């Protein structure tokens, strides 16, 4: 039996300290926590930085490092620093060094790096080793080379290699959410389908149970399946909460693709062990002929400046879309004219909060609200240009009349200056897999003695 303690769905989301103590008392074989995902958007990968505050990350990580020392087992974090790029891994390693010296404890740390050289990925693309997934964007070698960061998602094989170094702590770059949980049960010969399925159920912490914010869960893996137990007061796993978790953030609730194969839970059975725990068996692992890892990449998408005005006058609230369309047309023409630009150099968009900001043309609810927020978004090819066009847009958002005949209106600005500079923006550029001849081919493993 392999016992995995999962403190929460992500480092930075906090965990229930009392529940963690119970987990340590249960003598886990490993503590595994996720450090990121793409869910917060492309900027983190584009810049190679963490979403969560350093102070928060340090406090939570220090608590887990203490727990590790007490439990005498390895501690592993996957997708360190939100995006799992090398720079975010270095940030996490730096925090770990700081804590190790503060705690006065020498440690062996294995670092698994997932960053890929865009030049190498472009070459692999030209050699037909990069294949698209469903709804992948069109790509080219130039587009790949334009990415500021590309990461490959490590699977259980790479985490296993890191654990095999005998490290106390594994800091992994981008991995699949499940790999850090599945790796040790797989290494110890537990049921393969059960290892991946239990890892998927466990990867969001207590989200598979009632009281989902409490975080901490135990997953026990064995020869036939797994048992999941949330550890916080008042948290219960039921066959319903556990099986329903397969719906979460999955486009297919029965099939989950991983490096080297896929998990099929179509025939899995979920049984209550008691009021708190659920037993799962019957999950299948289907190995693939080709070993492939998923790629994520982010590339620059222009510089942005944002402005916001509030419309409260009912005449303008009722005609806000016409007002916004007129501003976009006139201000775009002025920007082309005064700055000698073409349409490809910039974009001005106005979204109407309270009317169509969520769904645009798909919005079906046409009721008139008391007020409307007009958010002006300028995206341009340089920072200076986005700021300049933001300043051109400012007087329109402040004073633009619906018709030339009416008295000049004034709308509410929230701030001075009204322009908010967002700097460089990024976009996700890849939804592809990279074929490998060896699982470690695209990854690097280092061992550091710290503290």
């Amino acid at each position: 039996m392999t016992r995995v303690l999962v403190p929460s769905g992500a480092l930075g989301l906090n965990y229930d300290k009392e529940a963690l103590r119970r987990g340590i008392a249960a003598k886990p074989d490993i503590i595994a926590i996720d450090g990121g995902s793409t869910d917060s958007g492309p900027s983190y990968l584009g810049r190679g930085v963490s979403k969560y505050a350093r102070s928060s990350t340090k406090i939570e990580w220090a608590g887990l490092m203490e727990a590790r020392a007490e439990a005498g087992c390895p501690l592993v974090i996957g997708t360190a620093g939100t995006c799992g790029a090398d720079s975010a891994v270095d940030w996490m390693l730096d925090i770990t060094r700081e804590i190790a010296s503060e705690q006065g404890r020498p440690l062996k740390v294995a670092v698994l790096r997932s960053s890929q050289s865009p030049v190498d990925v472009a070459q692999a693309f030209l050699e037909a080793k990069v294949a698209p997934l469903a709804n992948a964007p069109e790509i080219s070698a130039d587009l790949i080379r334009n990415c500021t960061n590309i990461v490959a998602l490590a699977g259980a094989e790479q985490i296993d290699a890191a654990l095999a170094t005998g490290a106390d702590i594994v800091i992994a770059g981008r991995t699949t959410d499940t790999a850090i949980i599945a790796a040790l049960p797989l290494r110890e010969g537990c049921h393969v389908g059960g290892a991946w399925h239990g890892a998927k159920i466990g990867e969001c912490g207590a989200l598979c149970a009632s009281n989902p914010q409490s975080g901490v869960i135990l997953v026990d893996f064995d020869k036939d399946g797994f048992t999941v137990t949330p550890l916080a007061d008042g948290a219960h796993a039921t066959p319903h909460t556990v099986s329903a978790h397969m719906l979460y953030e999955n486009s297919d609730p029965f099939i989950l693709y991983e490096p080297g194969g896929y998990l099929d839970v179509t025939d899995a059975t979920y049984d209550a062990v008691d009021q708190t725990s659920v037993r799962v068996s019957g999950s299948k692992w289907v190995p693939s002929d080709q070993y492939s890892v998923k790629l994520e990449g982010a590339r620059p998408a222009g510089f942005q400046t944002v402005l916001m005005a509030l419309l409260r006058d009912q005449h303008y609230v009722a005609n806000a879309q016409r007002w916004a369309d007129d501003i976009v047309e006139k201000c775009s023409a002025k920007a082309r004219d005064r700055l000698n630009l073409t349409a490809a150099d910039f974009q001005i968009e106005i979204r109407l909060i309270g009317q169509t900001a969520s769904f645009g043309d798909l919005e079906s609810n046409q009721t008139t609200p008391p007020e409307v927020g007009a958010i002006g978004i300028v995206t341009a090819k340089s920072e200076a240009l986005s700021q300049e066009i933001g300043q051109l847009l400012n007087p329109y958002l402040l004073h633009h009349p619906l018709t030339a005949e009416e008295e000049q209106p004034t709308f509410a600005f929230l701030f001075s200056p009204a322009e908010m500079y967002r700097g460089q923006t990024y976009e996700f550029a890849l939804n592809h897999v990279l074929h490998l001849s060896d699982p470690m081919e695209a990854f690097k493993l280092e061992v550091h003695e710290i503290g």
Partner: protein
Amino acid sequence: MRLARLGDQVQKIRSKNAGPFWLTIDIFCGSQEAYEAIVATLPTSRVAQTFGTSLQNIKRFDISQLHVVKFSLPRPTVQGAPNDRDMHGASWAALLSDIDL
């Protein structure tokens, strides 16, 4: 008078990213009766129309054990692209909640 707004007939509708390129929407019907009613009255074509996409883009899962009807579709815009409006795909459930059956 509105006869049968979808959101009023079920326990909860949730939408979420399934990676940066896909959106997934879970309709938790709450009972066997509600589940059967939704399966019988909500054609996939209606969901395609609501999201402005074509029928063949939509994956549908009717999961009777959970009383859940799940739809997955390519994200209306890629997550975080300049024209994206909803980084986590959280609001799209409301668009589906508002349709009348």
